[in-house]
């Protein structure tokens, strides 16, 4: 048993130091108020202790001024807390454009990760130091939560949708990865580690081992094998909308309304095509639920994203028009 008591986890991401500063500010406020209240209580309790059985202290009715003061001061303090913590939150919510993407799938009781180079890992994540890493998370079963204390970062992996978060590691080393959302019997064993490496070392790690199949390549293969290609590609155009330029665009839906074609939309359209049907098409696509795993779906989405925008098809033209506006 170690005898030292650390107060902070390792400080290994660009966010960590900012979160720590805010945390210390919050403790400072907590101590000032708690000790202030405690000192006042003890002082009053001693100074005005009952000296005779029949004491009758004088009347004090209250004071509007005091009530206002001790309502407004905490209110102002909470405004400071709100602005500061929301600023932190926005920094954590905005994924940098140059981030390298890693897909994360939670499954009882392991973490499955895939780099865009195709490298797969389980319960381990290798990342280069100083480079933003964009995590896109989902789950194959129940809700999990991807938590790296050294990065002050946590995000739920929720089945049926994609969540995203990011970090930039600042210190090479090995850090704990925990599942933070209770997920059943072996919840506390769903742990692993993040290895932060120097850039050269990371390149070496990528080069080692057999050449992996990238998600785009796997997606291309699935796109043909699963017959997506018969309705959704090139000039076949009749039965399904072409997918070139679709990701990120706004799609008009059958029966009115529209949706933004983000990853969650693409995933749903593959697994539950009847949920949102594109305007001008029939709901004829079969469901792929139960036939494709989360990694397959992620590969298909990566492939769809890699398609170059095409001219000559109504749907893709409409999509690219919208994007250029």
């Amino acid at each position, binding site marked *: 048993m170690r005898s030292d008591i650390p107060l902070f986890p390792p400080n290994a991401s660009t966010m960590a130091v900012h979160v720590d500063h805010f945390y210390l500010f*919050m403790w400072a406020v907590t101590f000032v108020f708690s000790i202030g*209240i405690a000192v006042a209580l003890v002082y*009053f309790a001693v100074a*005005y202790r009952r000296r005779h059985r029949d004491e009758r*202290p004088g009347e004090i009715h209250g004071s509007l001024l005091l009530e206002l003061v001790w309502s407004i001061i905490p209110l102002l303090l*909470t405004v400071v807390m709100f602005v500061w913590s*929301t600023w932190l939150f926005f920094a954590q919510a905005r994924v940098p454009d140059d981030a390298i993407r890693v897909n994360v799938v939670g499954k009882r009781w392991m973490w499955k990760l895939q780099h865009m180079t195709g490298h797969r890992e389980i319960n381990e994540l290798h990342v280069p130091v100083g480079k933003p890493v964009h995590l896109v998370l989902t789950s194959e*079963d129940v809700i999990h939560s991807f938590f790296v204390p050294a990065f002050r970062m946590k995000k739920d992996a929720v089945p049926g949708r994609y969540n995203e978060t990011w970090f930039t590691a600042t210190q090479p080393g090995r850090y704990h990865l925990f599942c933070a959302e209770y997920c*059943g019997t072996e919840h506390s064993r769903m742990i692993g580690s993040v290895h932060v490496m120097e850039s050269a070392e990371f390149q070496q790690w990528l080069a080692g081992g057999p050449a992996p199949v990238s998600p785009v390549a796997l997606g291309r293969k699935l796109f043909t094998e699963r017959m997506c290609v018969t309705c959704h590609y090139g000039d076949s155009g009749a039965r399904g909308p072409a997918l070139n330029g679709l990701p990120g665009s706004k799609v008009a839906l059958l029966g009115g309304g529209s949706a933004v074609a983000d990853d969650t939309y693409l995933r749903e359209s593959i697994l539950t095509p009847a949920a949102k049907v594109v305007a001008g098409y029939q709901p004829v696509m079969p469901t792929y639920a139960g036939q494709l795993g989360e990694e397959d779906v992620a590969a298909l989405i990566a492939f769809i994203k890699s398609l170059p925008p095409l001219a000559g098809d109504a749907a893709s033209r409409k999509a690219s028009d919208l994007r250029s506006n």
Partner: protein
Amino acid sequence: MATTVTTPITQERMPKEHYLNADYGVRSWLLTIDHKRIAILYLVSISIMFALGGIYATAIRLELLTPAGDLFTSENYNKMFTAHGVIMVFFFLIPAVPATLGNFLIPLMLGAKDLAFPRINLLSWYLYIVGGLITLAALFLGGLDTGWTFYTPYSTAFSNSNVILAGLGIFVAGFSSILTGFNFIVTIHKMRAPGMTWFRMPLFVWAHYATSLIQILGTPVVAVTILLVAVERAFDFGFFDPARGGDPILFQHLFWFYSHPAVYIMILPSMGVISELVTCFSRKKVFGYSFIAMSSLAIAVISFLVWAHHMFVTGLSVYAAMIFSALSFLVAIPSAIKVFNWTATLFRGSVSWQTPMLYAFGFIGLFTIGGLTGLFLASVGLDIHVTDTYFIVAHFHYVMVGGVIMGYLGGLHFWWPKITGRLYPEWWARVSAVLVFVGFNLTFFPQFILGYLGMPRRYHYYVEEFQVLNVLSSAGASVLAVGYVIPLFYLGWSMRYGKIAAPNPWPATGLEWQTPSPPPTENFPVTPEVTEEVYDYPNLRLPKETVLV
């Protein structure tokens, strides 16, 4: 210390007839419609539940002494923390103060003979018992491993434990809570004695009024939510399971829509107790009566608008998170107002350090830390790191144990002479109050640090560097346990051997002190008329019929 502790006023003999000896036999208790006897039924029932929940807590703290999960299997460990949470939240904390002290005192404080619907009051107790037995059956016969939060899709599609049965028990007990709230609201509106205007009501009553509003508005939502979980599990409906077209996050919205206000169902009645204690033991009018009363209502209203602060890492939209963060900060203000007013009440008072006041001091201290650490969680940017860790566990134990139980024990000691007609032994009571306070801090303060270090909650195994703090926490828990066990003995002892209490032993204002201890079944021989302002301590007179010792 040259402080004069006033001895509570005693008398030579008990009143000849009172609610406790008005009738004898098991039947006279199980079929009683006297709110005071029903309060006793609840007192016994929740004490048993508290002891059960405490046994589970002991087992959890023992397991966490070492990083390896070596005492129990993971499956059993998960069932134990689930049982601890379910029992403590639904069957102890929620009914703790309202069903016992509230039931006993609200009619007395208002000058009424009983609650508005005495039979419904008894029905509430039976619903609590039936719900409790169903849930206990689920916990003992196979167990439940979902955590007290029943998160989907784990609870609906993956758990192999007794989800439906346990949920059914909670569903039934929920109606007990709804009916009690309904009964209190009607009683407070319609049964006040002549002269008992709204702003002459003790703050204890105001706090229960606010609590009752939350109970009747919030509890039906959690009842329906649990029903949906059961239906999805039993009949394969797709409400929450994405594999069946549902949305697992929808469950969290519905669950926390009730379960966040439920925190205030637990804490508001205790706040009401503290207002009574602070005034009596400083012999002062409460500072800022209307601010304390209205802050209870403000808490009840705002508490319904903050639920999503439990969900900042689920993928909630950035703007929704901002709004819920701002509203969560706002709920801190009425709580702060209460703390400042209680403290100011002591100013230039005549402060006596008897056991109930020690508990009130403890409450104010622990609730202040519990409340302020809540602000850490309203701060989205920081909540991301600490949510689902031991920081959360520490925070809600400061509020729900540090706050609720300190208030409950303080109130129980304060009104013990009224309930039983006898005094508890002061020395022992002080020892246990100090042990509870010290043990509590030793148990839960290390958990704030553990949480920031990154130890997730509900972890059976943990990494080695968290051990020292876990050992500290378990050591503190053993002190806390001793503090909780001692009152069981001396309160039990006092029921037979304690000194006989005068009608108004402290003495205190309030109608409940103007009737004999213990009160007669009909509460007041003659309906009292209220002519004084509330907490009129400056003009407090010692009742004539008392014998001073």
